């Protein structure tokens, strides 16, 4: 008996060590990841914080780094993202509802599903090429705000569809049955029971998708968005620029002053990104209904 | 909480009470057919026994169904098993009433041996025991049940008295033997009816207190 107890004791001690070792490894990995990110942020902050001023956010680009501002890029980004959301959100959510609630499990439904999953992984520059061919040339929208937003909408659509489907799927089947059992139609069930519950999830997924899009430069460069814009876009078809392009442009200049501008613009972009994420968290909290299943 | 089951138990109780009333009438009629030398009534009593038998079967069936459907526990369980047993006690009483009526038919064929005095007294007493035993059952009255149990001694005493009296008749005149034996039987039947009433009373004690007092010297 005592022999057994001693053996047991040894096993337990060994396990406790293994457990501790694993925890230390995990914490180390986390520190490396956070450390890298923090270094980057601090570096950018050191470089750009001094340049941030009202003059910077309210001026148009200039040939002189100290007079240049990011106004047209900031406004362009905001316009573009608003339009992208207007295009992508309804289409994405509607597609998700169709695929999740209506489509029968046939071979073409499966083909569509696989395609959407793959589209989410396609490099963004490919979307740029598609946008260039489709919107800029075929539909003759030129290098406009409209072309940029439509291209971005294509880019985020698969992500919105996938995350919306996930949110719809997380609504318990028992609630749907409860609704159907009262004689509700499919649409009534979706509108009154499923969507309200899935909405916070759909919203979060979509905002994360837009957060990805806001930092994309390559598709915009591909469709030929301009880099030097000294005016604000006044229509859907007017040329525009956006923060990532402006940053890209400044970084590739030889003068050190423009590099500082780029860092400052990165900070502006980060602030917008953080605001969007904060909005996602806020909306999620607000619409979150307590589900105790 | 009022249970649906309680209504079904109440219905079973009603059935027992109906059967009890019928058996009381059977005993009364049997004795009446003897004392008043009414052979038609005796035949009617014999006929009516099948009604009691049918009720016994009904109560048994209802009880088994109640057990199967409700898996009764504690006092519910005791109530149903008691009801089943009371029903067989009552059924035997009715058989004995039938026997009394049969003897009455035979006795009514011959001149009366003597005026019946002790037999009606005994019958009256036995009937009261039956009634009180059933009352004790309905009202879950243990005191009344104990009274019935103790009253049985009185009936036993009467049985002996009647027996001795009839033996003296038979010793005097052997022509009386057949009739005297038949009357002895009747007193024996009554005594057994009282025994069954006692059994019911003992069942009532079990029903209320959960104590089995049969076959114990109390």
């Amino acid at each position, binding site marked *: 008996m005592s022999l057994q107890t001693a053996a047991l004791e040894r096993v337990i001690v060994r396990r406790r060590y293994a457990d501790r070792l694993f925890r230390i490894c995990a914490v180390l990995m986390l520190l490396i990841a956070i450390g890298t990110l923090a270094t980057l942020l601090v570096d950018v902050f050191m470089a750009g914080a001094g340049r941030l001023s009202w003059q910077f956010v309210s001026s148009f680009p200039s040939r002189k780094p100290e007079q240049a501002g990011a106004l047209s890029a900031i406004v362009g980004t905001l316009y573009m993202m608003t339009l992208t959301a207007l295009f992508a959100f309804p289409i994405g959510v509607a597609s998700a509802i169709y695929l999740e609630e209506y489509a*029968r*499990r046939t071979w073409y439904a499966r083909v569509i599903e696989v395609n959407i999953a793959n589209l989410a992984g396609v490099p963004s520059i490919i979307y740029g090429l598609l946008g260039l061919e489709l919107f800029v040339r075929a539909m003759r929208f030129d290098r406009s705000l409209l072309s940029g937003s439509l291209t971005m909408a294509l880019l985020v659509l698969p992500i919105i569809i996938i995350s919306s489907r996930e949110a719809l799927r997380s609504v*318990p089947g*028992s*609630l*749907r*049955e*409860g*609704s*159907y*059992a*009262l*004689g*509700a*139609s499919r649409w*009534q069930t979706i509108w*009154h*029971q499923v969507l309200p*519950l899935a909405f916070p999830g759909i919203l979060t997924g979509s905002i994360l998708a837009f957060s990805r899009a806001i930092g994309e430069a390559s598709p915009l460069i591909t469709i030929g968005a301009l880099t030097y814009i000294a005016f604000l876009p006044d229509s859907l078809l007017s040329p525009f620029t956006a923060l990532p392009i402006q940053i890209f442009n400044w970084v590739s200049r030889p003068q050190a002053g423009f590099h500082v501008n780029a860092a400052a613009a990165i900070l502006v972009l980060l602030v917008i990104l953080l605001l969007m994420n904060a909005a996602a968290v806020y909306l999620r909290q607000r619409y979150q*209904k*307590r*589900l*105790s299943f | *909480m*009022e*249970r*649906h*089951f309680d209504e079904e138990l109440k219905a079973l109780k009603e059935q027992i009470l109906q059967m009890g009333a019928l058996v009381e009438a059977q005993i009364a009629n049997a004795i009446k057919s003897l004392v008043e030398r009414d052979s038609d009534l005796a035949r009617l009593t014999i006929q009516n026994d099948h009604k009691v038998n049918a009720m016994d079967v009904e109560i048994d069936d209802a009880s*088994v*169904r109640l057990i*199967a*459907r*409700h*898996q009764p526990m504690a006092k519910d369980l005791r109530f149903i098993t008691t009801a089943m047993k009371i029903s067989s006690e009552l059924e035997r009483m009715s058989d004995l009433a039938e026997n009394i009526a049969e003897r009455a038919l035979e006795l009514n064929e011959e001149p009366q041996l003597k005026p019946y005095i002790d037999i009606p007294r005994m019958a009256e007493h036995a009937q009261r025991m039956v009634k009180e035993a059933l009352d004790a059952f309905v009202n879950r009255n243990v005191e009344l049940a104990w009274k019935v149990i103790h009253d049985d001694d009185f009936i036993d005493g009467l049985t002996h008295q009647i027996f001795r009296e009839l033996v003296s008749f038979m010793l005097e005149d052997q022509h009386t033997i057949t009739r005297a034996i038949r009357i002895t039987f009747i007193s024996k039947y009554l005594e057994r009816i009282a025994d069954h009433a006692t059994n019911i009373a003992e069942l009532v004690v079990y029903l209320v207190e959960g104590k089995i007092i049969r076959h114990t010297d109390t």
Partner: protein
Amino acid sequence: MPTAGETAFDIQNLNCWYGDRQALFNISLSIPDRRITALIGPSGCGKSTFIRCLNRINDLIAGCRVEGQVLYKKENLYAPGIEAISIRYRIGMVFQKPNPFPKSIYDNIAYGPLIWGVKRGPQLDAIVEESLKKAAIWDEVKDKLQQNAQALSGGQQQRLCIARALAVEPEALLLDEPCSALDPIATAKIEELLLALKKTYTIVIVTHNMQQAARVSDVTGFFLLGELVEFGETGQIFTNPKDRRTEDYITGRFG
């Protein structure tokens, strides 16, 4: 209106498949009006599949196929042109796990009437109150109608679901193991409720608890491996079953 005890559901040669797997084999039986019919049997015997054919809620399951006849009050529920929605309006259902909507108690009950065209107002208030009373839960919730229904206890939630089903004034009520997630007291309350409701509604209850079937039902059916082994008066099934398999099951000698 037919008198209680007459046939409400008349089922003839019902077969049901989930994909390639056949779940029900040639089920024929008739379910009496305004009585409680219990369906018992081991897990996977098809009793739930069967009850889900009675309001066509199985239609919602991909790959589910039904053949045969289900007549309700002489009307074939599977005839072409019959809307599943209108069937479910007449034949309510309560599920195994209480599934109140994550809304207020009031809105849970009001949902059915609202989708069937009742407008918000005094009439709807009256329907909500009456339904909650019928389901014997009014006294417990009348002061908190605007509270979230999911804050109620399991037993209360299930009675709320019964009230929700009653709010659209169905003629029949199907219950798929309504007490399996509840404690004995809550179960007893639901059983008493069903016994009270059977005066007005035809009730079919699937239960894996055969004591429950014995306690509440008038008629019992025993399912095994997708077949209806025996169907008869409950007292007879539980005291003197005709089929050896029924006897083995109800006496616990199964397998």
